[in-house]
């Protein structure tokens, strides 16, 4: 018995030493981290890249935009990822962090647009909302007739505006940890709050107090946090025709047989409207490339080329089939040119 145990310990030691040997070998596989919203698209490109025989299929991690930036900016060298996905533009703090850690040359590529949609069951009554109404339905505090902030009194949609359906307000959406939630606040709640003259005045007078107004969602059960998984929201909407859900356009497109989008200010969340910028609840998606790794880790330039190619990024490309809304043609051409030329981001373009 003792011999067996000693043999096992030895095996463990061998495995351990193998680890360090492995770490010393140069990396020949692209590593990507970042947003779970961009993940479905980057993985599709990674798979195509791998199939085309240009190199090993990149490893794509789903860490969230913030977590991805942290890893990306940790430094240069093969222990650090080459590319990060982001569902928003890089922040000033993150950019400075990158610079401090020696990640000097960053290439920003806008890969497409994601429509943040409010959707409902096909069996529900057609709805047309404004961002102001969304704010009224979901904010913790709303202005009353005199513009004074009061705790949200609305229980039914029809109390906000008689033309809205006469049903209880019930909206399923992402939890605060999600990047989709951040976008929802910025695209819907902030803009909705600004539609009130008194709140607009508040923004000028006391921007901190204003931020608090649009960043707080009511906690009395009208807004239901459904977890990070958007499919859970989809299933709940299919079961309850009076509920509304918040998620990315790709989920609406994929589940178009059972769900329909809610128009925002008269514009339905449809492919063309989002692409043209008419739909108000849309946000751009990015990938950031570490230029210092190009040429060191093989294939990064080829991968970027694949990402911005016509067959991937255009309106008929395979990313559009996965639910990404393509950029308008001229913008796409510009993005393609600067991406292939590896134009780096300068500090004054970040805010």
């Amino acid at each position, binding site marked *: 018995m003792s011999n067996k145990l000693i043999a096992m310990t030895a095996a*463990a030691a061998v495995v351990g030493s193998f680890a360090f040997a492995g770490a010393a070998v140069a990396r020949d596989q692209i590593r990507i981290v970042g947003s779970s919203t961009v993940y479905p698209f980057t993985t599709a490109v990674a798979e195509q890249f791998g199939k085309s025989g240009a190199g090993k299929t990149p490893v794509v991690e789903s860490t969230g935009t913030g977590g991805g930036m942290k890893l990306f900016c940790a430094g240069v060298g093969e222990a650090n990822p080459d590319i990060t996905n982001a569902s928003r533009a890089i922040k000033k703090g993150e950019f400075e962090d990158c610079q401090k850690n020696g990640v000097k040359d960053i290439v920003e590529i806008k890969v497409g647009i994601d429509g943040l949609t409010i959707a409902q069951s096909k069996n529900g009554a057609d709805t047309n909302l404004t961002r102001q109404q969304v704010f009224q339905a979901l904010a913790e505090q709303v202005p009353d007739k005199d513009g004074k902030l009061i705790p949200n009194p609305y229980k039914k949609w029809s109390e906000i505006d008689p*033309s809205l359906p006469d049903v209880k307000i019930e909206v399923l959406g992402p939890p605060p940890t999600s990047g989709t939630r951040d976008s929802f606040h910025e695209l819907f709640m902030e803009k909705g709050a600004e539609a009130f003259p008194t709140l607009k005045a508040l923004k000028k007078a006391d921007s901190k107090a204003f931020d608090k107004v649009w960043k707080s969602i009511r906690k009395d059960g009208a807004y239901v946090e459904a977890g990070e998984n958007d*499919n859970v929201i989809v299933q709940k909407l299919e079961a309850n025709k009076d509920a509304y859900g918040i998620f990315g356009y790709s989920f609406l497109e994929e589940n178009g047989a059972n769900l329909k989008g809610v128009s925002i200010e008269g514009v339905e969340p449809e492919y063309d409207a989002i692409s043209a910028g008419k739909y108000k609840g849309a946000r751009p998606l990015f990938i950031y490339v570490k230029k210092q790794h190009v040429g060191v880790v093989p294939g990064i330039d080829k991968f970027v080329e694949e990402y911005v190619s016509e067959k991937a990024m255009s309106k008929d490309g395979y990313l559009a089939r996965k639910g990404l809304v393509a950029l308008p043609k001229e913008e796409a051409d510009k993005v393609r040119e600067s991406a292939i030329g590896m134009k780096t981001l300068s500090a004054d373009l970040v805010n």
Partner: protein
Amino acid sequence: MTDITASDAARVRRVDVTSSAAKARIRARYRREARFKLYGLAALSLAAVFVVVLIGDVLSRGLPAFWQYSLVLDVHVDPAAVSSGGKVDEASIRSADFYPLTKAALESMFPGELSRKAQKQLVRLVSTDAAMPLRDELVANPSLVGTTVKTPLILSATSDLYYKGAGTQIESREMRGIATPSGTSGEITVLSSANDFADALVHLKQRIAEQARSLRSEADRLELFAGDTVTARVKALRDEAEKLQQRVDQPKVEEELDNKMPSLLIAIDGGLMKITKLSDVSATGIVLLPLRSTDEAKPGTWQLVTYETPESNRKVTDQDVAFLERFKQLGHVEQSFNWTFLTAGDSREPELAGIRGALVGTALTLVVTLVLCLPIGVMAAIYLEEFAPKGRLTDIIEVNINNLAAVPSIVFGLLGLAVFLNFFGMPRSAPLVGGITLGLLVLPTIIIASRAALKAVPPSIKEAALGVGASHQQAIFHHVLPLAMPGIMTGTIIGMAHALGETAPLLMIGMIAFIVDIPHGFTDAATVLPVQIYLWSDLPEVAFKSKTAAAIIVLLMFLFVMNGAAIWLRKRFERRW
């Protein structure tokens, strides 16, 4: 005498079991017991119901994913397409583009003119890597190049789901008149000698009337409220309802169909036309499948086909349904076991995605965990139980081992990130790091189980060994440890099963990732089964829902096998004394 009996009677408490009060007490006791048994039974059956519902749900969703429909077609393998530099070898076949071959094979199914749009849709019915089975066949047997091979083409996930029932009900009705189509492709009109379309038209008008009614009731509801926005909306609704009503009131006027109503089609002369405009004697529409000729069709040889689910309520278009139904009619569709699911790595195309990468990753990770944990855990248990001097220090260690067993698993992930990745510089996403991290997680479980197993060996065994002159170490290793082994094995396997289900610690060390290549070593990038399930459950494609459930089935099987092994080992080595 009587005194004594009296005092005896006073001292001995007599219980009269025949009194009605006593009988009631006894009955109450029995009732209490019966009630308790009932509670137990109820709890058990409730638990059983939960398990049955859970397993039933997973099986009903997941089992279809183990079967896959494919399209068996004759594909002509053009030597030019699979050769590079005039030579045909394995490399050239593997790197060849099979798209033109599959496209040609698909189009040869539909002689006649297909519109460009229809051609495009036809190709989308099959997977982006539809010719995978053909490629494997050619690699195995290169002499097939230049011949026509009967081969299955993998269908796209949407088409696969259509055959699995996520499509539409189809109804077909024979027609009485003589029909004359005006063309074989593009937009055509079919005239009928009898008023064949009248029924369909009546049906259509009824639906429109219904729509108008619902618009009017919505307007009535809104009218109860005042306000400018409402008045405008009410007016718009009323106008729309009025327009619809006009259409209903003129029964002979032709009607246009939209994608919110069931689709009407005409199957005639071997082709299929989708009706866009309908009157009681003629129908105008777009040809989905080309007609053989513009011959007159006799009564009973042509049909009016209805796709019950409106086009906007399903994922497949009318054109898709037309193609897929034709394939089925001609017997080209076959269902077979989905080997791809068990042999392929991850993919973003549901029909090509497989579980093997995650399965191998799980095995590699668990091997590292086992190799690390079993010796360290057992040694630590033996030392603590048999050799360590009893004292304050040992107590502190004991308490901390018990505490460690209750630490949330994400904490171990953070530890793994800080120590193994950042300090030791080990590779990200590697089963090695995953295994070590999970090893830390299950180590306390194994130590506690091993100590319990060692403690359960009767002291007489050790004492007998010591009595005949064995050293302490000999007594432990030769006599106590073998007897404790079944218990240690059980504890280890329960610990491993725990590790098998963990995802949280793996997030921090980069194993929650999209990895296509199947890992070959402990430092290759890999992921594990529960992570694969989590990742698939979050993807938008509907087909991944059943893949997720199928992956859960595989994970459950893995668990059953491990627990089965635990039971077998225990039975095999168990000794009674």
